[in-house]
């Protein structure tokens, strides 16, 4: 029973990180109609920056609870990168065929992946001090790190804030208006360029946050972004590209299937995920909750 509880908690932990990545990917697609292939790499950048900041913080003798402040800082730095990338590399392509956007973001993957290697080298960067800082929780005889519960909580809070922001604020109305009809929104006096930059920035922030909160539980390693991207793809394909609810449901489905897969059919665990995605695309091309 305790093992089951731990497996469920592990699934939720994974779901929370996946949701952060996939929601950003979905938001960017929903508003800007761009499939950002570099999204996984931005998540990895978030992990690296955070791990590096925490390492610096420790060597400068920062008090332990202050180190937690560095998590959102890591996420914000990724948002900053996004705010630079959008006008520089993506804006020239809104009028051209979507193939070009895919290619630019593919080029961006290669650049970001190698920049990470250039800056932080090939050895994994760990930040497990944070994980050790929180108490370990007892679950019917088994031990579970308290930090993992924080990650789950961050995922839940992020989902609530994102939902409230999109459906209950003026900015959310602007986002949704732009996503439905860019030209009409522009004709009504919306600054579409600003909406695009902020949507991309928020999307990148989510990816960065995912990387920042995951890095204390594992280390930042090369290639983590590319792996994360294809899983995030599976999530948004199942849930529906451009749908917040879809990203949430997709993340939960994928993480539970994956946890079960590792337990019961480890060889086919990845193949099953992609097959589910392909099946959903066949039956409901727009995903479970997609509209576009």
């Amino acid at each position, binding site marked *: 029973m305790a093992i089951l509880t731990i497996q469920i908690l592990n699934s939720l932990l994974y779901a929370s990180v996946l949701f952060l990545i996939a929601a950003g990917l979905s938001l960017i697609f929903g508003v800007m109609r761009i*499939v950002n292939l570099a999204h996984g790499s931005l998540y990895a950048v978030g992990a690296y920056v955070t791990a590096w900041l925490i390492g610096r913080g420790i060597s400068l003798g920062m008090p332990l609870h202050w180190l937690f402040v560095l998590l959102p800082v890591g996420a914000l730095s990724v948002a900053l990168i996004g705010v630079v990338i959008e006008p520089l*590399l993506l804006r020239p392509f809104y009028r051209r065929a*979507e193939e070009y956007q895919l*290619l*630019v973001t593919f080029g961006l993957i290669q650049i970001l*992946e190698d920049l990470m290697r*250039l800056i932080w080298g090939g050895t994994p960067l760990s930040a497990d001090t944070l994980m050790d800082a929180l108490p370990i929780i007892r679950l019917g005889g088994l031990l579970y790190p308290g930090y993992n519960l924080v990650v789950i909580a961050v995922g839940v809070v992020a989902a609530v804030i994102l939902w409230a922001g999109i459906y209950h604020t003026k900015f959310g109305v602007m986002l949704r208006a732009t996503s439905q009809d860019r030209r009409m929104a522009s004709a009504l006096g919306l600054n579409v360029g600003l909406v695009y930059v902020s949507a991309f920035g928020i999307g990148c922030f989510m990816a960065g946050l995912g990387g920042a909160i995951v890095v204390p539980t594992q280390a930042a390693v090369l290639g983590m972004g590319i792996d994360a991207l294809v899983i995030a*793809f599976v999530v948004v394909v199942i849930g529906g590209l451009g749908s917040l609810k879809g990203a949430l449901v997709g993340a939960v489905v994928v993480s539970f299937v994956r946890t079960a897969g590792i337990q019961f059919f480890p060889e*086919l665990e990845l193949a099953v995920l992609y097959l589910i995605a392909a099946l959903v*695309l066949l039956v409901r091309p727009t995903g479970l909750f997609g509209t576009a």
Partner: protein
Amino acid sequence: MKREIQSFRDRPILRLAAAAGLILLILILLPAYFETYQMQLLTYGLIAAIAALGFNLLLGYTGLLSFGHSAYFGVGAYSVAFVVQYLGPHSMEFYILIGVPAVAITSALLGYICVRHTQIFFGILTLALSQVLYSLALKLYWVTGGSDGLRVPRPSLLMGLLTFSGPSGFRQFITSYYYYVLAVFVVCVVFMWVIVHSPFGKALQAIRDNEVRARFLGLRIRRFRWISFLISGTFTGLAGILWVPLNGLTTPDIVYWTFSGEIVFTALLGGFRNFTGPIVGGIVFTYLKTYAVATTEYWQLLLGVVLVTLVLVLPTGIVGALAKLGERLGMRKT
């Protein structure tokens, strides 16, 4: 005599054939002047060109961007490895005889699923299906060797007529294999040229340009796309079959989706709106990557910058840019 020259000028196909013949002659004469390493590199380039040529039937002529062509390249390579592992004969013709149907069946099956969608959903679906094959290649290690992959020794060529062993075997193999690949390459180019200029090819272009009108004309759009997918996948698979004896090893990397990205890059580099674009792209990309890897540890960064710049500045690729330049010069003359 003058009239003959005139007609020669008026008929671009003759001019084209003459240019192709000249290039072919140069390619045939090259091994006499180049060292083994250069020949090996050029062979890789020709193989990449075949893969990109097949890929471009979908992107350039049918208007579908596949992000999963690594799957067909991989099926080609792995079917050769399986032949070596479980059937035994080390004959290149046998590899092709088994490999091509295997690739054709795979691309027919996966293509049947993929062509139900277009645009971005087509891209994601091709990617997802290629990832299924990747994870199988990685995880079913008792069949595929897992991340270690499978070894493929040097095969004999021309029904066992040419075998390669002994100290000079490697050099002999490279030279002979170059001619072998060149022959296959020429057949592929001619075949693709005929397809693209046939009524079938014109129908594909009509579908690419305006799906609704093509449907009004009575074209069965999904079937045309499916057949295009089948041919495209088979070409790329053939490239995989030719690639594996040269490389000597097949690993799951070539089925991973980033390899599909490289194929897309190749086509774009040369220019996907031209017939010759992917061929030029395949050869240039091979050299570009090899020299990037040789000069810097951070070759991916270099390639990424090239790709982004290319898309920003030269969206029509090398061949497109050259054609435009030629046009401009020609206009100045007259």
